[in-house]
């Protein structure tokens, strides 16, 4: 015989109690494993989705402008590409298309559609071969759509076969100039591709769900043949460069399956690419001022003219060029609306250039031939044509009017400035003026040498303006109110865009600098060759690709990183499951003790025959290891089932929590192993603790069958006092933890609140234990069944306390979680009834009658307010997106919205915290968005930002106002936001809210508005939504009620809570089992006593009542303890105003707890009455 034989014999013989114990161990392990499985499944599913939506695409070279399609072929030829990449596919991507289908006069529209212009190589990027056939269907001018879009538009396979599925696609017109710039387009911003036949529907797999932004929601895509899209764009925009063969993205696939190329390989690829200037939107032209033409032409002066298709270089580009090309001189040319002189003469629409006194080039020279060294800040130099036309003399004060370089809401403000005429420069008149031949502009021919001021190239190319035949045919974004004279046309013919005036660089910057930049060109000496210039340009681009709007985005790498999710579901479920695990451990302890009770004499015997404590523990451990291991193995299997059930629930009943049923079970050996070992370990510790306690009992007491309970009885009031002190300590700990929790956020805060509740629950249970232990000594004058029932609960205080604890935990979970349910209030909307969004930005002012007229919107009541918000597309950081949001979307809040709450505090929003330190800001924390924040050594500029608290805490991991959030956008912006306020349960979930001024500074290239808050007045008709959506359909306007948005957000949180409450249900199950087990054991132990009661005349019914009441005492004790602990836990939540207890549902749940407990009590009591008690008495 040995210990193993002993353990096996004991295992087999005591299979019933061992099985019960194994069940409890299995329950604890199952809860642990289940939580871990849910977490790993969430991460695994998000990872799968990432790989699915990207197919074989690992990286994307993406541009904010078009580049040559030839670049794709050049990339393919690089050695780095050959070594690390397999596919490079040129494409045109628009993330914000609008698609309409029409059937029987009914138009169905889908907004925010991914538009993909792709060539055949695109289909090589798919991992799902089933779409191969469909790729053929894209030819012959037909388009493909994915399943999600087809469903939205109501298009079926039958429609496609019948040829009735035809679509209209609207995309933003490619514009070179920002819409908000002075010469940027304000109207006619949408390009429509009509009557596109649908060739097929792609499934929701592989490239059928291609999207750049990580989201578990299905994207809606339309796929066009690249050639077709290029041709359509070229048709719609004459200035679509010289060749329509343009792309704005290159999709790259690595050579090794799901593993993207290394960062080093990415860097090497980028470094190996050589771009042409036009790929970066840069134009390098040689400007020559010459006499004569053709072979006999004499060059007077020449330079390289570096300009940008965007009209102005960004400040960043300017700084890079200035430092890389020291010999380059900047030019700032601006279109002034008028120049007038004191004599009353006026010249309309002239170019004025800001230049520095040149060190490299021939300086401007006055009529008398003297060089003009420097132009003062308050001065202007005119060419002799303009001076003559204005009849202006040196010293005259001239007035210049011009539009502000930035417009807002499509409205342009005209400004004016007075400058003193410093000097007049001579310009030579051409022998032959400029002329347009077959849409090609032929240069003017000079016979006398042109002067440095004779330079039309100082003005950058502006499509629709510089290439126009006459001034009248200028395509300008504003009405030309100035009268064009014949003299002006003469000037245009002779000199085109030659500046009529010159100011200093400083003055030019002062007057015309904007968020888009100010420098319109660089003049570089021709001593530098073009190839060297291109090399410089490539070096600058390689150094910081985003500066030039052409960058490589490692989409798979960042997508897989984001797939780790923001919400650690395993931690979340584990945190809340902790109570259930404690319940299961209580059950382990209760069942183990019950089993041990039967064998306590055995321990006594072993001790008597010479087993020391260590040996006693060891010999018992062998058996218990077997039970625990078997239980833990069963627990792992049960946990997988539990995890599967949770995932099943999350994809069906609770799908609201994750938006789409994308979750799939993901099992990993590591996760199961961790669950197994942890479950085993905690259960083992629990039983080991009890064994240790028993092995310390005197052998004689064990031999006498002394119970653990009797041993646990305090032998002195000192021990009882310590129990009370410990309970007080727990309560103090709970209070401190709750106070601490108010300084935490997200999961930590929830964990701290729950931890506080756990401490309160523990303190209450200690108190109950102490009360059960202490004999009151009260002499009853009567004896009732209730007294007997309570007395019986006192017999085994620890056992009774554990059962109360089991029921208490279940009750606590059900009640505490209920208090976190969200109920939207009117203060969550700031008074906005509707929120509208558009796929394409609207430049005109929707809030003004004029703007609405321009947009064709009618039927809007005069009192209805529109608040237009600028919008930076980014990742949705709301609870609807489970991926990490590293580049959250941003909204620019207009001053009108901020000021709205200065006067209407009663419609203010709920704030969860702010940095307001004065009365005004406190009454309207929106004002903090205007705060000028000081940067630090590490941060140049801080942008004040307001964030919804839930978004901040759960998605962005920001837990306190004052926190600085650094975001690097793929579009190149690197920004630091300082949180100045948290909104409570607002309609602004998922976005960063910054002031409009800061928005324009942070995202200078973004123009117009895409989000609109609408506050209707009483006269506003109910047809507002229909009117807006109809009139602004081309922009993809979609209007939703703020109430429905809030309800949707609330339903996500409430769905999570429902999921967590199911854990309470599980706790209830464990509690019921504990209750039943204890009852059964107690009855077995007391069968002689019960038999005696029968013998002395107790009727069966009365005995049943007694047993039932014993159970009810424990049940109600548990419910009471759970409710008190839950209410104590939610006190801070009540104070913060966030608690909203659904009393009816809560009372229903408590009723359920009691009903289940009563049923369990009745069942176990009735089972006793079936026992042959009389024979027990005899034997």
């Amino acid at each position, binding site marked *: 015989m040995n*210990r193993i034989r002993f353990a096996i014999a004991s295992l087999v013989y005591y299979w019933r109690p061992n099985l019960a114990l194994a069940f409890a161990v299995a329950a604890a392990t199952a809860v642990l494993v289940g939580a871990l499985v849910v977490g790993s499944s969430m991460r695994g599913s998000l990872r799968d989705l990432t790989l699915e939506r990207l197919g074989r695409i690992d990286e994307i070279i993406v541009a904010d402008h078009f580049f040559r399609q030839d670049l794709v072929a050049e990339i393919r030829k690089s050695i780095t590409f050959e070594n690390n990449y397999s596919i490079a596919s040129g494409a045109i991507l628009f993330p914000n298309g609008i698609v309409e289908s029409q059937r029987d006069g009914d138009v169905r529209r889908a907004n925010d559609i991914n538009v993909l212009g792709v060539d055949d190589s695109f289909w090589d990027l798919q991992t799902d071969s089933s779409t191969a056939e469909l790729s053929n269907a894209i030819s012959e001018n037909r388009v493909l759509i994915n399943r999600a879009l087809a469903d939205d538009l109501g298009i079926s396979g039958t429609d496609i076969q019948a040829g009735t599925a035809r679509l209209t696609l609207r995309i933003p017109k490619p514009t070179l100039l920002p819409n908000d710039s002075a010469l940027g387009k304000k109207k006619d911003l949408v390009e429509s591709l009509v009557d596109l036949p649908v060739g097929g529907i792609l499934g929701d797999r592989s490239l059928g769900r291609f999207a750049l932004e990580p989201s578990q929601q299905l994207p809606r895509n339309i796929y066009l043949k690249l050639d077709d899209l290029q041709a359509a764009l070229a048709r719609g925009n004459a200035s679509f460069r010289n060749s329509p063969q343009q792309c704005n993205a290159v999709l790259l696939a690595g050579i090794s399956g799901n593993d993207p190329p290394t960062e080093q390989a990415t860097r090497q690829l980028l470094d190996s690419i050589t771009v042409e200037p036009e790929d970066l939107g840069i134009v390098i032209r040689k400007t020559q001022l010459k006499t004569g033409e053709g072979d006999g032409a004499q060059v007077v002066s020449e330079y390289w003219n570096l300009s940008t298709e965007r009209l102005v270089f960004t400040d960043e580009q300017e700084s890079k060029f200035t430092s890389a090309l020291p010999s380059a001189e900047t030019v700032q040319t601006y279109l002034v609306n008028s120049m007038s002189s004191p004599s009353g003469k006026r010249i309309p629409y002239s170019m004025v250039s800001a230049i520095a006194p040149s060190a490299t080039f021939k300086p401007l020279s006055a009529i008398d031939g003297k060089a003009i060294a420097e132009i003062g800040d308050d001065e202007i130099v005119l060419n002799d044509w303009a001076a003559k036309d204005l009849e202006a003399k040196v010293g005259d004060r001239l007035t210049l009017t011009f539009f502000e370089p930035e417009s807002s809401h499509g409205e342009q403000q005209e400004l004016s400035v007075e400058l003193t005429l410093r000097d007049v420069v001579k310009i030579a008149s051409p022998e032959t003026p400029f002329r347009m031949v077959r849409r090609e502009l032929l240069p003017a021919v000079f016979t006398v040498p042109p002067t440095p001021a004779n330079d039309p190239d100082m003005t950058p190319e502006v499509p629709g303006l510089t290439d126009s035949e006459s001034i009248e045919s200028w395509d300008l974004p504003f009405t030309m109110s100035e009268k064009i004279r014949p003299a002006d046309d003469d000037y245009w013919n002779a000199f085109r865009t030659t500046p009529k005036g010159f100011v200093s660089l400083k003055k030019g910057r002062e007057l015309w600098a904007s968020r888009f930049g100010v420098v319109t060109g660089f003049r570089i000496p021709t001593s530098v060759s073009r190839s060297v210039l291109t090399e410089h340009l490539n070096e600058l681009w390689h150094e910081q690709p985003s500066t030039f709007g052409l960058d490589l985005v490692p989409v798979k790498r960042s997508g897989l990183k984001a797939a780790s999710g923001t919400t650690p579901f395993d931690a979340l479920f584990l945190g809340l499951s902790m109570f259930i695990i404690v319940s299961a451990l209580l059950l382990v302890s209760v069942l183990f003790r019950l089993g041990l009770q039967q064998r306590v004499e055995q321990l006594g015997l072993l*001790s008597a*025959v010479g087993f020391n404590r260590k040996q006693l523990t060891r010999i018992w451990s062998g058996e218990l290891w077997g039970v625990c291991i078997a239980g833990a193995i069963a627990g792992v299997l049960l946990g997988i089932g539990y995890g599967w059930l949770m995932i099943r629930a999350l994809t069906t009943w609770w799908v609201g929590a994750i938006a789409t049923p994308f979750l799939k079970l993901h099992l990993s050996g590591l996760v199961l192993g961790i669950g197994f070992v942890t479950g085993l370990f905690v259960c083992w510790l629990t039983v080991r603790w009890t064994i240790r306690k028993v092995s310390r009992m005197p052998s004689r007491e064990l031999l006498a069958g002394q119970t653990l309970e009797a041993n646990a009885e305090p032998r002195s009031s000192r021990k009882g006092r310590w129990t009370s002190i410990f309970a007080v300590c727990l309560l103090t700990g709970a209070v401190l933890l709750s106070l601490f929790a108010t300084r935490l956020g997200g999961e930590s805060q929830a964990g701290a609140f729950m931890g506080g509740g756990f401490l309160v629950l523990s303190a209450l249970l200690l108190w109950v234990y102490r009360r059960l232990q202490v004999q009151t000594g009260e002499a009853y004058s009567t004896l009732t069944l209730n007294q007997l029932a309570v007395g019986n609960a006192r017999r085994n205080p620890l056992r009774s306390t554990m059962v109360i604890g089991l029921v208490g935990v279940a009750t606590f979970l059900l009640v505490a979680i209920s208090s976190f349910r969200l109920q939207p209030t009117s203060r969550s909307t700031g008074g906005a009834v509707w929120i509208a969004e558009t796929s394409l930005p609207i430049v005109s002012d929707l809030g003004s009658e004029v703007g609405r007229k321009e947009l064709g919107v009618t039927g809007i009541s005069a009192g209805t307010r529109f608040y237009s918000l600028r919008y930076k597309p980014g990742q949705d950081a709301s609870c609807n997106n489970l991926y990490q949001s590293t580049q959250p979307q941003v909204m620019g809040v207009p001053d009108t919205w901020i000021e709205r709450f200065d006067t209407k505090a009663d419609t203010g929003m709920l704030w969860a915290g702010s940095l307001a330190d004065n009365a005004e800001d406190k009454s309207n924390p929106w004002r903090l968005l205007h705060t000028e924040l000081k940067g630090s050594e590490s941060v140049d500029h801080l942008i004040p930002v307001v964030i919804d608290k839930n978004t901040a805490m759960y998605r962005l991991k920001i837990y306190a106002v004052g926190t600085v959030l650094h975001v690097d956008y793929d579009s190149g912006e690197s920004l630091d936001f300082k949180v100045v306020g948290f909104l409570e349960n607002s309609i602004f979930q998922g976005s960063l809210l910054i002031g409009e001024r800061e928005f324009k500074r942070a995202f200078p290239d973004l123009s117009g508005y895409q989000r609109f808050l609408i506050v209707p007045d009483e006269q506003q008709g109910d047809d507002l939504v229909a009117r807006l959506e109809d009139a602004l359909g081309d922009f993809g306007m979609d209007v939703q009620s703020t109430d429905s948005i809030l309800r949707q957000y609330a339903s996500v949180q409430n769905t999570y809570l429902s999921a967590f409450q199911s854990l309470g249900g599980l706790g209830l199950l464990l509690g019921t089992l504990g209750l039943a087990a204890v009852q059964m054991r107690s009855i077995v132990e007391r069968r002689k006593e019960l038999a005696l009661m029968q013998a002395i005349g107790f009727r069966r019914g009365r005995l049943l009542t007694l047993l039932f009441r014993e159970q009810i005492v424990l049940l109600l004790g548990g419910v009471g303890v759970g409710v008190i602990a839950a209410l104590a836990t939610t006190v801070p939540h009540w104070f913060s105003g966030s608690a909203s207890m659904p009393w009816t549902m809560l009372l229903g749940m408590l009723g359920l707890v009691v009903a289940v407990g009563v049923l369990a009590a009745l069942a176990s009591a009735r089972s006793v009455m079936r026992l042959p008690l009389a024979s027990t008495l005899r034997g």
Partner: protein
Amino acid sequence: MPHLIVKNVRKSFRSALQELVILGGVSFDAKRGQSVAIVGPSGCGKSTLLSILGALDVPTDGTVELDNVNPFALNADQVAAFRNERIGFVFQEHHLLPQLSALENVLLPLLACGPVDASATESARQLLTQVGLAERIDHLPAKLSGGERQRVAVARALIRNPSLLLADEPTGSLDQNNAKSIGRLLLDVGRNGNATLICVTHSLELASQFDRLLQLDHGTLTELDPSQAIAAKV
């Protein structure tokens, strides 16, 4: 030379209000191979005294020496080894482990010292044969009668060849025939094994067969003549 020396052993329990004296200074000694019966009314402290002699309980005062070893001067592990090597117990309830066979129950004390080898198993078989259970060696306790179970308990008590055999009401739950048989068995194995047998019993018939008879009453011990005791029906 006495083999077992009990000197002035006191045992009392202190509650908040009073001190309950169970043993009030008990002294006696016994020689190796001697059999001693202890009789007395219920609750007089017989079992407490036996527990103290078996090092299962600690006296409030006084000393016990077995083979010149005072077990109460030893630490817990040493006491356990002391019990294992020198003392055999037979209780009123047999305290057999129901999951183990008769043979395994006998071997149980050896398991405290490590795995049990074949020679020890053979010794256990011989012991079981000696107590008349040769045919029941592999039976579980549930398959044995009350008398048989107690025989197994006796064999278990003897497996370590103890120098002190303590029996607490060994026949208390047996019928007359089994009681006689067990009594005889105890006396025989005690004498044959050269162990001191101390037995607490209510049975004067059994007590009369012992070398010495001690009566415990009100915490004090009085030596009686076994033959006179039966006549007087103590």
